[in-house]
């Protein structure tokens, strides 16, 4: 049997077929969504597969009648600040847990881990009452603060910090550096892959977040993209074309962030699953 024949075997052909079929299934909704941005509302529902000429109209409607820029800004502001705050808080915590081992801190870490199985709804109800009591309903910070700290991110960054050698820290201390300096100028810069993954995770989670913003927002002031989409979908008059535009736009930043950081993301994961 020649090399060429060995490579092109029938089972392999079917494997590729399966992959292509599955890929089509995965991609089709995206393709249809983008197509939908060019159609008028009725055609979107009917599901015509031929592009229309309503893209500009739909875009204008989404921007003018449905305030897409404001919602995009809200989502972006909230997600970005969460990333900044989250990276700082979570990496500090991971570093502290990993490089300064103590029984007490290990207990605290275990408690943090419990939150991973804590159902969101159980936290959200009392949290809502707390936020309402502080008159912080309908503010961006009410969405940012509760979800900046993430036990998952801390856990995963801990695995990354494991690989950071203690010797470097000790050497730096001998040189007279304070812990803060060691952390910010030596440890963090060496964790780029892990931090990138943490940033992606925090951004995507906050960008896509629905239940908590649903309860917290009262007005357009803090409305985020997922809320805007669901509002449009449950309205008495559903503007399907404009909705497709907003859905598409809401996917772009996540896609960009993910594609740009893809390599780091997988690398970061490889480091932590061990």
């Amino acid at each position, binding site marked *: 049997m020649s090399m060429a024949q060995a490579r092109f075997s029938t089972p392999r052909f079917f494997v590729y077929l399966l992959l292509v079929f599955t890929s089509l299934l995965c991609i089709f909704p995206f393709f249809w969504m983008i197509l939908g941005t060019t159609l008028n*509302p*009725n055609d979107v*529902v*009917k599901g015509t597969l031929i592009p229309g000429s309503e893209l500009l109209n739909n875009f204008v409607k989404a921007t003018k*009648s449905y305030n897409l820029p404001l919602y995009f800004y809200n989502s972006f*502001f909230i997600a*970005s*600040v969460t990333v*900044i*705050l989250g990276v700082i808080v979570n990496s500090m915590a991971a570093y502290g847990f990993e490089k300064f081992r103590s029984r007490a801190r290990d207990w605290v870490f275990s408690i943090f881990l419990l939150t991973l199985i804590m159902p969101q709804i159980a936290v959200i109800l009392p949290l809502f*009452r707390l936020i*309402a*009591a502080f*008159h912080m*309903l*309908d503010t*961006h*910070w009410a969405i940012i603060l509760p979800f900046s700290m993430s036990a998952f991110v801390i856990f995963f960054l801990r695995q990354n910090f494991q690989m950071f050698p203690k010797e470097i820290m000790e050497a730096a201390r001998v040189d007279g550096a304070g812990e803060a300096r060691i952390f910010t100028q030596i440890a963090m810069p060496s964790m780029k892959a892990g931090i990138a993954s943490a940033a992606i995770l925090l951004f995507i989670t906050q960008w896509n977040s629905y239940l908590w913003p649903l*309860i917290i927002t*009262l*007005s*357009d*002031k803090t409305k985020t993209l997922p809320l805007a989409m669901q*509002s*449009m*979908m*449950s*309205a*008495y*008059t*559903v503007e399907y074309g404009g909705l497709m535009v907003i859905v598409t736009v809401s996917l772009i930043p996540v896609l960009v962030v993910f594609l740009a950081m893809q390599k780091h993301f997988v690398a970061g994961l490889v480091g932590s699953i061990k």
Partner: protein
Amino acid sequence: MKKSLMAFLTLALFVGTAVLASANSKMVTVWCWDPNFNGYAMNQAALVYNKSHPDVKIDVVVFPNSDAVMQKVQAALQAGGAGLPDIALVQDFQIEQLVTNYPGVLADLKAAGVDYSQFAANKVGPMTEGNKIYGIPFDTGSTGLFLRADYLKAAGLNPAHYQKDLTWNDVITLGEKVKAKIKKPLIAFDTTDWTFLRMMVQSAGGQWFKADGSLDLSSPAIRPAIATVKKMYDAGVLYPTEGWGNWVSAFNNGDAAGLMSAVWIIGTIKSQPTNAGKWMVVPTPRLSGVSGARNASNWGGSSWYVFSQAPNKAGAIDFLKSTWASTDPDALEFYNTILKGAGAMGTFLPSRVGSNYTAKDKFFYKDQAVYHDFAKWMADVPNLRYTANYNAWGSAISASLSKLYKGELKTPDDVLTDATTMYKQSISQ
């Protein structure tokens, strides 16, 4: 960290502007839910008011649907009143629930000088508590059966033959003929909403609740109504949809040949210009074999309410009195405008003489004078008692009805038993 400083500055700006905005006592905030209907109507009222009060800004905030308004109102009330608007639009069937659960949150407008004898009695009823009356009635939900005259013709039928008082049995026969000839179900039907059934029962003078709010299923209209809906479903006369948006697309796209709805759907119907000249409206069909059955019913209808904790309570009350409860020629003309513009049929009795009430509407088949018809039918509508438990019952019976369509429940009594159990659990009795 430049980025977070920028973020902080932006946040400060936001907070600053919000504070400034709320300090402006020349603003009245209104929450409603349909940009083409009640939002539009309120904006028209604002135009009238701004003629004599040019410095007052009426901020009309449109939510996606009436549930969203109720939820946000309740969330704001839970937060001690922070974020409440001055005025909110509340459906007639929801107001008693709001008043019962949150005593004292609404402003007594009777005490503020509104003359309620000028409004339709069946609107004032739900908003009355003792000798306090809370809102300004807005629109009526006089119902009718909308049919596509062109589809009827395509099925070999004469539309004029159906422009009269029909029974639901007549409608079933019609639906079967249309389905056989052109394969289209006659009536687009939202399976998640029980109002179709409720409207049928109301048209025969049926009630669901006693005056004290307790459930009462003894009305002779209830079981025949459930049986009729099931019969229609099985005969393929109904085109089932899974929600409002789906329902609208079904009749606007022509997947169904008609719908059962109220005068306020006209704005939505007109939003599909390609259907001009094709729609006609006939009186609400009546239940066969039930005494007291009429060819008229009501679906929806809402009113404007002012909150006691409203940021600009006095301004809001003055605005409402000068536009919605005023016999000024400008105010009456505004009622006339919103009738034609959005199918918003007000319940302010002096406004019923507007020219649009008798005008022909070119959008409809043979220029039908639809508003005249709806107003005529409205006079015949039996009153319905809503009570604070209306929503809870509605949720329970919609779920039971879905089981009926599927065949899991067989008889109207099965449906009522199933729904009653669920209802009792949901209100924790």
